């Protein structure tokens, strides 16, 4: 059962916002500060608690890491006292958290719907912008024992990546995905003493020596191999384009489409035209993609428009950047040879 809807009221960047989600790929685009990462973190926290059974408010606090760990700071900033709220839906199931902007601890937040929500666990993974596998050794124990200032998504991604491989042979779909990735990274990922290596004909290459693009694909390989990304899982990926050569975007987007075909619900936030265009060019009729364009309206309030086709995205902050460049290029040409 996939996530179907997100609702926010006076939560971080949002005044009031409802997003209807696709069971397939949800692409979030928009300028900085429109809340793309925030909404993915909320949805991820709601998924994660179904496995860990942690209180939803506590998990939110850990993935957002507000200053002083005061959950009230996640309420949209206002001079008067206010209440922030976020809700995540899976069809009829709903989990909701609300809290005063003066709330200091997650315990003072009100969570509703959690018992029913937890009854149906959902596997999920959040791939943050910063690559973590190369920092893996020792990080988890450090995070568990010390108050280090890292959002919990960084520890969580390592937890997922360290899971041992699934027992038994991979089914056809999973095998195909793993082979695609092995071809792209020219090897397989192994873990030794908490350290990640790419194993290929040359031997074992530690992740710290690999290009970041290879590390990203290696992470995907690991998550598919150990069953984190399977039919029914939810993948959140914040700016997959970061530190990746655009030539690799095609392979990455193809894997994303194949994961969707395999039943993985995907949330991806991007600033990159090539990511959008690769998805558009590679999608087939059976792929389900929803583009969510976040923008500030004339009053500075974050709004969202949904489109199912690349060309219908409006406003399209990424295309607008190209439009400006194109206009300047043509104006320069028109100016050349002028009297």
């Amino acid at each position, binding site marked *: 059962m996939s996530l179907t809807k997100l609702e926010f009221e006076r939560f971080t960047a949002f005044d009031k916002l409802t997003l209807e989600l696709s069971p397939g790929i949800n692409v979030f685009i928009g300028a900085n500060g429109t809340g793309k990462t925030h909404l993915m973190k909320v949805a991820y926290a709601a998924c994660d608690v179904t496995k860990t059974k942690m209180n939803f408010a506590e998990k939110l606090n850990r993935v957002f890491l507000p200053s002083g760990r005061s959950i009230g700071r996640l309420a949209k900033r206002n001079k008067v006292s206010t209440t922030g709220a976020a809700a995540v839906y899976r069809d009829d199931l709903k989990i909701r958290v609300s809290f005063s902007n003066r709330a200091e601890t997650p315990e003072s937040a009100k969570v509703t719907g959690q018992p029913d929500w937890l009854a149906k666990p959902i596997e999920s993974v959040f791939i943050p912008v910063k690559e973590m596998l190369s920092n893996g050794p020792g990080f988890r124990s450090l995070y568990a024992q010390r108050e280090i200032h890292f959002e919990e998504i960084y520890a969580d991604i390592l937890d997922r990546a360290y899971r041992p491989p699934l027992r038994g042979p991979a089914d056809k779909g999973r095998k195909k995905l793993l082979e695609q990735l092995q071809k792209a990274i020219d090897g397989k990922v192994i873990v030794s003493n908490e350290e990640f290596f790419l194993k290929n004909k040359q031997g074992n290459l530690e992740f710290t020596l690999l290009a970041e693009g290879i590390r990203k694909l290696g992470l995907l390989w690991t998550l598919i191999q150990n069953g984190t990304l399977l039919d029914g899982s939810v993948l959140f990926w914040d700016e997959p384009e970061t530190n990746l050569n655009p030539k690799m975007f095609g392979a990455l987007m193809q894997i994303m489409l194949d994961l969707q075909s395999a039943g993985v619900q995907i949330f991806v936030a991007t600033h990159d035209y090539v990511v959008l265009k690769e998805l558009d060019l590679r999608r087939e009729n059976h792929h389900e993609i929803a583009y969510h364009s976040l923008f500030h309206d004339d009053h500075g309030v974050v709004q969202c428009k949904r489109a199912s086709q690349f060309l219908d995205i409006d406003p399209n902050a990424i295309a607008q950047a190209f439009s400006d460049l194109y206009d300047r290029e043509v104006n320069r040409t028109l100016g050349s040879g*002028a009297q």
Partner: protein
Amino acid sequence: MTVFTEGNLRISFPSGTNARIFDDASHGLSHCMKAVDFVVDIGHQYLFIEFKDPDAPGVPENRREEYLKDFLAGRIDKDLKYKCRDTFLYEWASGRADKPINYYVIIAIDTLTPADLLVRTDALKKNIPLRGPRNAGWTRPFVSGCAVFNIAAWNKHQRRYPVSRIQ
């Protein structure tokens, strides 16, 4: 106003503009030289204008998609380059080509994005080429500027010479 048509497309020039259909029967050398659709003398420069219309009514959908793929992959670039180059040679040998030349290609596909047009414009500039060899730039480049448009982009930037589809 002077109005020319090319297939299902129409371009208008203000009265008095010295515009010619270049690739008609009077060209006479179509067996060995490629040709752009129109050559326009706008006083301080010549415009070479080429239309490509895969969106024309009657073009089968698969041909249109094929053309779009070829265009985006740069497989049309060579044809666009030779059209411009041969037109220049023809004009030069005719004793014209005596002013800077701008080469404009209008690809009448509505769905082309600014990014697509920007990438193909850059590729065309490189292929013509606009500049001479790296260490010895040309003092007399034969094309001073070029750009790829779709109809909307053309009409936004070239309001004096509007292009429209014949209904």
